[in-house]
């Protein structure tokens, strides 16, 4: 197991290094001079020159890359050009919102997908199964931000039950924080729920046709026991991998959903950085969000290997 973890961590580090290189290189191609962008077109050449030196823009890009990478390792992600504050503290401020959104969305997805996936596999080929299949087909095809708008229309504007957007921190008022996150997390979670339901259904069907399930039934075990103790455990393995992939989807989807619900998270910060061409902030955010996704995929992989010994000894 330890050998497996070490091997995975090494490949994760290689991927992160490539990711950092790509992120840096991509954003070097942006036309325009950041110093000019900050000072405006009427700045004197001397002022431009000294700002360039201060930002390190007078050095060749490989040196700047190494400097940036070294900073990242120390947790120093540079300074936002527009907001004139360290990127790391901007991220730390916004992270709780995005993280709560993603975690809640995943919880909602699991709460829906588990009963739906199991039921539709157990009641295979029944009207209920068809209904669940149909609903999941719909869930995959609906854009999450449209679900968000429809939810606002129903629950905020007609029923007046929940706020249309914005956020109140957990520390201030946990109940209000929950109320503000419920709609955005549902819009994001429903799509993931649809993917997970389909996966759980097909992997349950696969497992239920195995000989050891017939054996368990033949020896007279209760149906409940067969489904939950024998089948579900094995059916969960592919579902866990898909859930790992979905973390990346939730992270990306939160960018758009935060915009719909005016949530002050990482996604909104990223968009404002893109609109104002704040390169250090874009670089820091892209790197940070990708690292989070890659790291959580690693955790899922380790969990996966723990659940299924065949993988460890491959």
């Amino acid at each position, binding site marked *: 197991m330890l050998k497996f973890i070490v091997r995975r961590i090494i490949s994760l580090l*290689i*991927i*992160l290094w*490539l*990711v950092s290189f*790509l*992120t840096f290189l*991509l*954003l070097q*191609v*942006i036309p325009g001079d950041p110093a000019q962008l900050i000072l405006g077109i009427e700045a004197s050449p001397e002022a431009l020159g000294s700002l360039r030196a201060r930002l390190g823009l007078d050095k060749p890009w490989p040196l700047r890359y190494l400097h940036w990478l070294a900073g990242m390792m120390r947790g120093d992600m540079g300074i936002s050009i527009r907001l004139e504050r360290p990127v790391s503290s901007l991220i730390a401020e916004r992270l709780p919102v995005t993280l709560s959104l993603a975690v809640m969305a995943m919880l909602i997805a699991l709460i829906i997908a588990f009963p739906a996936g199991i039921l539709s596999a157990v009641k295979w080929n029944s009207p209920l199964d068809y209904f669940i*299949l149909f609903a999941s*087909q*719909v869930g*995959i*095809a*609906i*854009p999450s*931000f*449209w679900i968000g*708008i*429809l939810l*606002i*229309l129903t629950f905020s*504007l007609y029923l007046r039950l929940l706020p*249309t957007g914005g956020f109140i921190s957990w520390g201030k008022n946990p109940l209000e924080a929950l109320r503000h996150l419920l709609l955005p997390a549902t819009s994001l979670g429903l799509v993931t729920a649809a993917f997970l339901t*389909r996966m759980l*259904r*097909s992997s349950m*069907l696969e497992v239920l046709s195995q000989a050891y399930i017939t054996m368990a039934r033949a020896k007279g075990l209760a149906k409940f026991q067969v489904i939950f103790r024998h089948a579900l455990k094995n059916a969960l393995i592919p579902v866990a991998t898909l859930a790992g992939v979905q973390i*990346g*989807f939730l*992270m*990306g*989807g939160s*960018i*758009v959903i935060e*915009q*719909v619900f005016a949530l002050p998270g990482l996604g909104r910060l*990223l*968009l404002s950085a*893109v*609109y104002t*061409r704040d390169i250090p902030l*874009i670089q820091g955010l*892209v790197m940070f*969000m*990708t690292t989070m*996704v*890659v790291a959580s995929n690693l955790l899922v992989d380790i969990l996966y290997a723990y659940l299924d010994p065949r993988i460890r000894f491959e």
Partner: protein
Amino acid sequence: MRSLVLGAILLGVVILGSASSWILPLPDPLAMEVTERLSPPSWRHPFGTDQYGRDLLSRILRGGTVALGASVVSVGIASLIGIPIGFAAGLIGGILDEVTMRLMDALQAFPSILLAITIVAIMGPGPLNAMVAIGLVNGPVFARLARSVALSLKGRDFVLAAEALGASRLRILRYHILPNSLSYILVQASIGASTAVLAEASLSYIGLGTQPPNPSWGRMLEEARLFLDVAPWMAIFPGFAIFLTVLGFNFLGDGLRDLMDPWRRGRG
């Protein structure tokens, strides 16, 4: 078969709809009629009008061109970049395979919409740039597919026989590998088209794709968000259009996959 037919019908409707916006004498999707602003669905404006009094039916039909364009352009770019890379990696192997696949790993480590946003940030917002960005992001998917098909075909008897007869690598690629991978590529193209429609709508929603006043379904939803309490119809129809198009491509992809793989037929 059912999903293939269903997908074809849905996409047929979308294609006819966006074609009709150029052929039929509908109201100009860009023409503003201030006196008619924010009017609910009626005989004159079946889907209602927006905050400038533009006819929403015309705008949705015209927006179909953008969505279909996004799927064609981005799938085209993704396959033109991905497939040669995948075939080269699979057939040549060795260091080339190792390096390109690690690069694909890194590209796929980014959440896809995040990478697309970054690319649009570099190239500047706009409909064509958004489509190119989506295509670039989806390139690795096609590369992986082409590589795995090439790897599995490489050892098959008919390829070995061609090799034994002295066929060159290029000839094998052209006459044996490519024709036998087309069906897989077609399925992936259809799935890629469905993700492209969603991605284009997302990018336009956050203001990085199609720019006003041109209609795009994502952009229209963003405008609708501002007038949700007074003009809810603005938010219903564009979302429905995205949904039907994505559903169409998904059904088409499922149907094509079932068609090729009889073992999967009849199973969800």
